[in-house]
C-alpha cells in the first residue's frame, strides 16, 4: 500500500542521504540474517512471512546481504524458540530477527546470541533483554484510539462490547488496557461485556453469539483485529442492529465494510499493525551490521484505515490477507534516523 506519496519519499531519501552519507552496500554483502518466528497460523503471520520473503529476496538478489532465511518453530513454545535461536547462532548468522513467543522467556538465548557477537532485532513480539534492538508497536494507543474515534461518533456515549485476543498474551493485555483507559477518560461509555475472540473470525463469531442474548443495545464493538467480521456475522444471525464495529485491516473485514458502506453508508474505522514490520526489522538489522548508530528502542506507528482510504486499501490487500506496508531501505532509514 502506498501511504507515502512519491514526492515525500524522494524528499526523505534526499535528506537521509545527506544526513547519513552512507550508501555502502558492500559492507554487509557477506552477512547472513535469519528470521526466528514463533507462529505462522493466522493471516497476519502469513502476510508477515510473505513480506519478509519478498523484500529480503530482492535485497539478496541486489547483493545487499548474502542470505536472509526465515525459520518458524513447529510449535509456539518458548523452549522451542530458545533452541531455535541457539541453533541459528551455531549456523553462523550475523544477525537474528525475532518475533518472540514471550517477552522474557527468550532472554537467556538472546544473551547467548549477543555474547557470540550476533545482532538481535526483535519486533511485534519483542524481547526485554537489554542487548537486543526492539521495534515496538504502541498497542496501548491502538486500543485507546478506538474509543477516541467512538467518542467523536457518539457524543452522548453508549454501550460497548469488547472483543479481546488470545488470553495471557501481553499484546492482548496492552490493547485491552488502552481500551479501558479510553473508556475511563470518556465515562459516557460502558463496557457491557467482554469476550475472547483469539484474533480469529470463527472464534469471535462464536464468542459474540454466546454473549449477545445477555446484552442490552450495543452501540459499538471495540476489537483487536481479526475479529470484526465474525462479530458482524454474529449480530446479523441474532437479528440485531449492526453496531459500529471497529475493524482490524483484514481483507474479509474491509470487504464487509465496503459492502455495508455501499449499501447503507455504514461508517467505521479500522486499525492494526502492518505485518510488513518484519521488513523494517530486516533493514534495522542490516543497518546495525553496516555499522550505523541505531537506537536500541524504535517504535512504529500502527496502520489505520478511514472511511476515505477504504477503497484504496482494499484494492491493495490480497484476498485472505491483511492491509500491509512494506519497508524499503529508505523508508526504514526514515524511521530509524528520523526520530
Amino acid at each position, binding site marked *: 500500500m502506498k501511504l507515502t506519496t512519491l514526492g515525500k519519499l524522494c524528499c526523505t531519501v534526499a535528506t537521509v542521504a545527506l544526513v547519513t552519507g552512507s550508501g555502502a552496500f558492500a559492507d554487509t554483502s557477506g552477512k547472513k540474517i535469519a528470521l526466528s518466528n514463533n507462529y505462522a497460523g493466522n493471516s497476519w503471520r502469513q502476510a508477515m512471512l510473505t513480506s519478509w520473503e519478498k523484500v529480503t529476496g530482492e535485497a539478496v538478489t541486489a547483493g545487499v546481504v548474502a542470505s536472509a532465511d526465515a525459520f518458524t518453530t513447529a*510449535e509456539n513454545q518458548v523452549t522451542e524458540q*530458545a533452541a531455535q535461536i541457539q541453533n541459528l547462532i*551455531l549456523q553462523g548468522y550475523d544477525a537474528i530477527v525475532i518475533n518472540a513467543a514471550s*517477552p522474557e*522467556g527468550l532472554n*537467556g*538465548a538472546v544473551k547467548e546470541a549477543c555474547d557470540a557477537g550476533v545482532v538481535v532485532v526483535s519486533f511485534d513480539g519483542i524481547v526485554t533483554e537489554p542487548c537486543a534492538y526492539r521495534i515496538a508497536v504502541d498497542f496501548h494507543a491502538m486500543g485507546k484510539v478506538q474509543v477516541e474515534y467512538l467518542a467523536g461518533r457518539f457524543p452522548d456515549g453508549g454501550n460497548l462490547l469488547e472483543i479481546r485476543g488470545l488470553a495471557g498474551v501481553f499484546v492482548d493485555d496492552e490493547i485491552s488496557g488502552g481500551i479501558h483507559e479510553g473508556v475511563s477518560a470518556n465515562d459516557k461509555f460502558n463496557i457491557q461485556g467482554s469476550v475472547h475472540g483469539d484474533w480469529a473470525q470463527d472464534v469471535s463469531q462464536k464468542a459474540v453469539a454466546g454473549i449477545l442474548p445477555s446484552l442490552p443495545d450495543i452501540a459499538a464493538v471495540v476489537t483487536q483485529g481479526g475479529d470484526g467480521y465474525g462479530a458482524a456475522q454474529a449480530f446479523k444471525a441474532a437479528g440485531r442492529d449492526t453496531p459500529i464495529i471497529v475493524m482490524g485491516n483484514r481483507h474479509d473485514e474491509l470487504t464487509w465494510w465496503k459492502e455495508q458502506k455501499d449499501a447503507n453508508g455504514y461508517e467505521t474505522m479500522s486499525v492494526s499493525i502492518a505485518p510488513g514490520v518484519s521488513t523494517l526489522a530486516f533493514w534495522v538489522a542490516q543497518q546495525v551490521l553496516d555499522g550505523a548508530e541505531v537506537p536500541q528502542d524504535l517504535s512504529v506507528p500502527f496502520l489505520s484505515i478511514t472511511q476515505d482510504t477504504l477503497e484504496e486499501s482494499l484494492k491493495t490487500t490480497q484476498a485472505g490477507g491483511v492491509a500491509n506496508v512494506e519497508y524499503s531501505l529508505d523508508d526504514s532509514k526514515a524511521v530509524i534516523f528520523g526520530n
Partner: protein
Amino acid sequence: MSRLLTPAMMRTLLPGLSLAALLAAIFYLQPRTMSYFGLNLLLNLAVPIALATIAQMFILCVNDLDLSLGAFISLTACITATWLNDAPLIGILALAACVAAYAALGALIHLRNLPSIVVTLGMSFVWTGIAVLVLPTPGGSAPGWIRTLMTLKPALVPFPIIAAVVIALTVHFGLMRSAAGVVLRGAGGNPKSVERAGWSMLRVKCTMFALAGFFGVLSGMALVGLTTSADANIALRYTLLSIAGGILGGGEFVGGRVSPIGAVIGAITLALAGSFLSFLRLNPDFQIGAQGVILILVLALRLLINSRGTRA
C-alpha cells in the same frame, strides 16, 4: 566378539549408538558445533529435558505414566522465577510442598487403585491453574545462583555434558546399584511379590512419586536458569518429550524396566534431533513429524534386536 554382540548387549548400547550417530551427523552438517562453545549451545537446553525424563522414568518404573509433568515443571519454573527469587524461604517451602503433593498423588493412585493416566491428566489442569495464579503474565527472574550455575563455563568440558553425566550417574547408583533401588524397581516389575516379602507398596509408590516430583522441581529450576524468566506454559512440551526420552533410552511401559543412563541419553538425543532437523533446513511443518520418524526408527531397531534375541 560374538559375546559382545549379544542382543542384550546391543539393547544396552542402542541409545548410546543412536546418540553418537546423530552427533556425527550434526558435526558433519555444522562443523561449528564441534567446539566448546558449540556443544554448550547445542546441549544446554537438554539439561532440563534430561531432568524431566528422569522424573518420568521414576513414574514409568512403578508401571504408571505421568501426563502432568510438563504442567508441573511449568509451575515449579514459575515458583522459581517468582517466590524463590524474592523470598527464598517461601520459595523453598512452596517447592517442597510441590514434592509432597506428588508423593500424595502416588498414595492416592495406590490406595484408590486409580489409573495414573487419568489422575495425572486431571492434575495437569490444576498445575497450570496454580502456575497462572503464581505468574499471571510471563515474567519473573531467575535467582542469581541458579543463573550462575546454568551458565557456568568450566575449563575443558562444557557444563551441559558434566551436568548430564552427574545426573545419569547419581540416579544410576541410587536406583540400579543400591539395595533400596532394587526394592523400588522390583515393586514396578512384580508388585505382588514385593508386597508379600513384607515391603509396603504405599511407601514405594510415595517414594517414587516424590522422587519424580523432586526431579521435576530440579528441571523447572534448571529451565529458569537458562531462560531467565518463566511463564505458565513454558514447559508443556516436556510431558511428551520426557515419555519419549525415557522409552528411547531403553525404558519400557512395563514397570521395573528402566535405565537412568539411557534416559539421559534419550533426552539428549531428542533435543539434538530438533537441532539436526533445523540444520537440515527442513520445513518446520515437517519437523515434528520427522522427530516422530526418528523415534519410530530407534524403537523399530530395538524391536528387531529383541526378536533376534528370542529366536537365538
